[in-house]
């Protein structure tokens, strides 16, 4: 079994800061939105305070992530190649829908050149490049308006608020899916361990990218 160093120390630190922040934002966000039904922080104002502070912390963490990923060129792991779009995605999806139940090997083994499977690449890219920025911009903008630093109409607030809500739901859906899929490693805990130690125990033997296992099943 070969150990691969997949996640650097900075990546792991960033990941867990983000993870804790993310969960707090979801909880406090729901508290603000469903003030009566979901009052987990006790008071509305407490939820708002947590949401504002954590929101800003997560924003800074996000900016650091860009500096680090681009600076270290590890952003390349997120870049899809030509195989990743339709064929790779289909193979990975088929694995989750069928192969995983039959004990098939993961179609995309981790290695020096590959950290993520195609599904991961696309969702992480979507989250980091589309969802997060929209959420951060609408969140900061709302903060700005509500503080009364700028005049605004309720129509503006509504558009911002609804957008912020919509993307919050998508991000929450991502979070749930992400946590679940993290249990689909070699053992249910394998991926979680990797995110703490940085090392992955590669699945079985390394399978060349261009002839995935799942093709045999087709």
């Amino acid at each position: 079994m070969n150990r691969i160093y997949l996640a650097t120390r900075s990546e792991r630190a960033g990941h867990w800061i983000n993870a804790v922040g993310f969960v707090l934002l979801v909880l406090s966000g729901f508290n603000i939105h469903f003030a009566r039904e979901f009052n987990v922080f006790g008071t509305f104002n407490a939820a708002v305070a947590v949401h504002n502070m954590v929101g800003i912390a997560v924003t800074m963490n996000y900016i650091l992530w860009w500096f680090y990923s681009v600076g270290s060129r590890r952003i390349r792991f997120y870049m899809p190649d030509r195989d990743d779009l339709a064929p790779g995605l289909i193979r990975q999806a088929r694995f989750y829908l069928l192969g995983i139940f039959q004990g098939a090997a993961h179609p995309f083994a981790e290695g020096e050149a590959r950290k993520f499977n195609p599904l991961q690449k696309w969702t992480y890219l979507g989250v980091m490049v589309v969802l997060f920025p929209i959420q951060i911009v609408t969140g900061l903008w709302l903060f700005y308006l509500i503080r009364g630093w700028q005049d605004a109409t309720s129509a503006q607030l509504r558009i911002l608020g609804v957008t912020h809500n919509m993307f919050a739901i998508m991000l929450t859906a991502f979070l749930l899916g992400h946590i679940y899929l993290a249990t689909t490693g070699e053992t249910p805990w394998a991926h979680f361990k990797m995110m703490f130690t940085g090392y992955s125990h590669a699945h079985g033997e390394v399978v060349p990218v261009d002839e995935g296992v799942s093709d045999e099943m087709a």
Partner: protein
Amino acid sequence: MALLASRQVKAGKAVAALGFLMLLGGIGSGAVLLNTDDVGHSPPPEDLPAALPESVLSCAACHLNPGLQPSYRDEAGRLHQGYIDADAYVGSIHFRRDMRECTDCHDGDYSRFPHPKGNPEPSCHDCHENFEEEYSDIQVAVAASVHKSGGAAGAFDCATCHSPHTMVPAREMTVREKNAGCVECHEKRYNPTGLTLEQRHAWHPQAALHLERVACIACHTQPSGTDFSFRHNIRPSSEATSDCYACHSADTKMAAYEGSFFGGRPQVYTRTQLVRAYYMSGGTRSASMDRLGLALLLLVVLGTATHGALRFVLRRRRRA
């Protein structure tokens, strides 16, 4: 009547204080204070608004004097507040519409004290019923309200909530002013449970905020019809709004409180307030979107749970 009982003490105190003042005045300055029948000699309080007409000053020593709040109760149990806040009087719609002198509304003999019995008692309807139909609509709404259907009915009329001396159109009232009458009576004068309003609204996670910044009538009346008189039809508390979505949603109930009999917008809820002073999450909340979003999340949870269960079951079977 028990309802307004605590104030009777006040009326007594006022008369006692009055007597004491007269005594002091008589001994101290030698000038005769109210010792004669002519009330015109009593000195008015200082710092009265300059806009007050001459004739009012003769009544000011007693009726515009915050230290002396003559009040009394009539046979029906209604409390009559004899104190008039001078600034509110000058700011009132009647003063601004040129009804400045007390005698514009009170004809009768008030030049002496104690005032002679039998002066006619004016009411809003003396003047208003004849010239605007809105007032009779309001009267119908008040008559249908919870205040007129219970045992306290006799104690209620327009002046219980509105003083003609300080009345302004709704668009000029602050939320606090609109609520002041309700709060004063329900916390102190008529409070059979002894609980504060905040305690009685404890079901609301933001009770204090809403009691302070939302008009009571926004929950305690229900919009209906095309005129604005429904705002006077206070419903029994079983019909009060407790659904957050009624206000915190795109088609907010609050919109029904924006218009006014007299044009303009009363201050229950204005755009500037919405943005400047408060952010009503409601403006940004849509019930259908919430349902859609929650359905999506539920789907994800169910989907992953099924997937996980399948994995678990099939893995065991494979091993076996």
